[in-house]
């Protein structure tokens, strides 16, 4: 079922799958009408979808290195685009992005521009060339292009630092969702999440991850778009929210004027539970300086082009041409969700603050709001809080606080959608977090098993042994990530942004110059990776410990400093040492031409 035959039948297979999932949603909706409890619906949604992913993971099992590392290089463009989109959109994108836009407005939307604009760099600077190279992993490219075990090893180090920072956040997110949906303590839910993740990737490696990620994309995009369209129609805001919310955006602006942004005193804010925030920034006005916006967008764009778990998805396409197109499809599928997040934020905010809507709570009496069912639920879940600071008995804009996740998780309930939608959203969040975690864990385990174990430690190892090592590493890294996630030391979004900064500090210029500058050599690349990563890390530690920073570079954009150091170090050291040998130069020439055999490997 799974071989060549399977590839030809992909549209049919996933068409049936999508139909089946929609039918499942309808069955759940009927179940709800017939009195199924919300807890049972939540469990069904998460258990059913995870079981499907596990089955796909099992069916994709393989004993071949090519299938395990690069899915046999036969993933068609559009499906690779879906898989990349799922790989890319993490639990943070799904659960926290609309919330970030809701609270921070324009300044936060630099992330939308950055996390999409980066794909232009991926398509034009890197993906097709790395595909032509024919490598299994990103450090494989660095190690072969520049030569020497040191450059390979440094690339593995940068990859591990960046991806591991990222993956703890994803396992944390799967744990959060599993603990809510299955109603079990977070410390155990983290491991339930981990086992689900490993079920997808362990047997089939990249092949298993590819086909589960396509399935996960379908779940997450339905789970994100369906509520947005439903809420918009229910509120009468517009049939197609993306094109029709201008009045609502303007209305929020008017209400902001009318209410005013009243600053709360420190004593009052101390009463607000940790993690909740009030509306303090304009919704659609420009509220950040050009450099604050541009530096954050730039850091995310360069980080996108350096993150190995994204790059390695383009190693799985059948050709160089397909790799380029596939980047376009990836971004299209990402665009579907990203362009909906601001719409959800708008709908959510308006439905809460507009006194003329039945769901609006600003201007109502405190006692009245406290009596609302959904307020009580989300207050109990520690995601909503109100307090009568000025003692006038009426809820003001500055007296209402919410957690970032609530925008995605609570808006369907506030708008009066049936509970089945909340179950669907939980399944979508789980899919988003799982697919990203899978890609990341696989990127780390593959780099260590292929580049450190096979290429450096034991080049004579047989395929079977290599794949055993790869799988053992997968489990070890997964458990390490889950253990750290269970400690709950960082927030989800902060650590995601750091991962981009780490990746760009160490890998952006060594990758790009490897293709575009023939004169770049081993010494330069090693200096670029080592000094870039160290200076970025140093800057982060300095700013975290009260350092003032410079040029407006913050702890969210430290990669700009790291990558600048990396560029200078790489160019200076390359020029001070001898040019790469003729064989390497020929290799670069080869990479630049799509036709012909790949530079390394058989296909």
């Amino acid at each position: 079922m799974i071989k060549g035959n399977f590839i030809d039948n992909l549209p049919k297979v996933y068409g049936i799958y999508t139909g089946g999932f929609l039918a499942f949603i309808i069955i759940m909706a009927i179940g709800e009408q017939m009195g199924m409890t919300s807890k049972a619906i939540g469990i069904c949604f998460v258990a059913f979808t995870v079981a499907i992913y596990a089955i796909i993971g099992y069916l994709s099992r393989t004993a071949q290195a090519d299938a395990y590392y690069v899915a046999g290089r036969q993933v068609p463009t559009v499906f690779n685009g879906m898989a990349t989109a799922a790989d890319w959109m993490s639990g943070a994108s799904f659960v926290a992005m609309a919330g970030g836009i809701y609270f921070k407005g324009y300044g936060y939307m630099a992330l939308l521009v950055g996390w999409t604009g980066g794909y232009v760099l991926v398509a034009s600077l890197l993906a097709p060339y790395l595909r032509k190279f024919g490598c299994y992993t990103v450090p494989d490219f660095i190690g072969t292009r520049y030569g020497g075990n040191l450059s390979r090893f440094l690339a593995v180090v940068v990859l591990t630092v960046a991806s591991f920072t990222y993956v703890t956040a994803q396992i944390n997110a799967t744990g959060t969702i599993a603990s809510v949906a299955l109603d079990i303590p977070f410390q155990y839910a983290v491991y339930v999440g981990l086992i689900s993740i490993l079920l997808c990737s362990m047997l089939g490696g990249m092949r298993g991850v590819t086909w589960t990620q396509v399935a996960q994309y379908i779940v997450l995009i339905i789970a994100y778009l369906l509520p947005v369209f439903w809420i918009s129609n229910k509120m009468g805001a517009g049939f197609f929210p993306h094109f029709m919310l201008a009045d609502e955006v303007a209305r929020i602006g008017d209400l902001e004027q009318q209410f005013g942004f009243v600053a709360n005193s420190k004593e009052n804010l101390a009463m607000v539970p940790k993690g909740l925030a009030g509306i303090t920034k304009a919704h659609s006005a420009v509220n950040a300086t050009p450099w604050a916006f541009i530096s954050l967008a730039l850091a995310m764009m360069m980080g996108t082009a350096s993150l190995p778990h994204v790059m390695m998805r383009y190693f799985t396409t059948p050709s160089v041409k397909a790799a380029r197109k596939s980047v376009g499809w990836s971004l299209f599928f990402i665009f579907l969700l990203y362009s909906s997040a601001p719409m959800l934020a708008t709908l959510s905010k308006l439905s809460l603050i507009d006194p003329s809507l039945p769901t609006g709570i600003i201007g109502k009496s405190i006692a009245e709001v406290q009596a609302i069912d959904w307020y009580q639920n989300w207050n109990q879940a520690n995601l909503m809080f109100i307090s009568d600071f000025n003692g006038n008995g009426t809820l003001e804009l500055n007296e209402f606080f919410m957690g970032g996740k609530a925008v995605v998780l609570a808006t369907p309930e506030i708008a009066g959608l049936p509970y089945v939608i909340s179950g669907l959203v939980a399944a979508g969040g789980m899919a988003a977090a799982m697919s990203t975690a899978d890609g990341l864990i696989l990127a780390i385990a593959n780099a260590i098993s292929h580049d450190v174990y096979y290429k450096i430690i034991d080049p004579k190892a047989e395929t079977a042994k290599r794949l055993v090592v790869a799988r053992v590493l997968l489990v070890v890294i997964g458990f390490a990530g889950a253990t750290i996630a269970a400690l709950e030391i960082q927030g989800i979004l902060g650590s995601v942004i750091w991962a981009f900064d780490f990746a760009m500090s160490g890998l952006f210029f060594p990758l790009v110059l490897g293709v575009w500058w023939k004169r770049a050599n081993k010494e330069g690349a090693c200096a670029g990776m080592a000094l870039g990563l160290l200076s970025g890390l140093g800057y982060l530690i300095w700013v975290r410990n009260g350092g003032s920073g410079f040029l407006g570079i913050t702890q969210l954009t430290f990669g700009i400093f790291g990558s600048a150091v990396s560029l200078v170090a790489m160019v200076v050291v390359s020029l001070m040492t001898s040019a790469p040998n003729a064989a390497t130069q020929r290799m670069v020439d080869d990479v630049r031409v799509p036709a012909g055999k790949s530079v390394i490997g058989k296909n």
Partner: protein
Amino acid sequence: MSKQEQHWEKTRGLLFMTLAIWFVFSIGIFLFGAEMNEVGGPFGYPLTYWFTCQGSLGIFVILIFWFANRQEKIDEEFGFSERGDD
């Protein structure tokens, strides 16, 4: 100039053009974010707000497909394109 050098020259030219367009919509316009937001954009949204929600994002999608097609044409022109399907 060899065929391969010419091919690379053209490829580089396309890269610069692509990056120039990318620069305008990811960085350039946001230098004037505050001023531009006073202007009405598509569908009646404030212009800068629209770019951050949809405009720049959508332009990037189109830009990548445009780039991929142009690059394919360049590869074909020099006979460097791969045989076979997508």
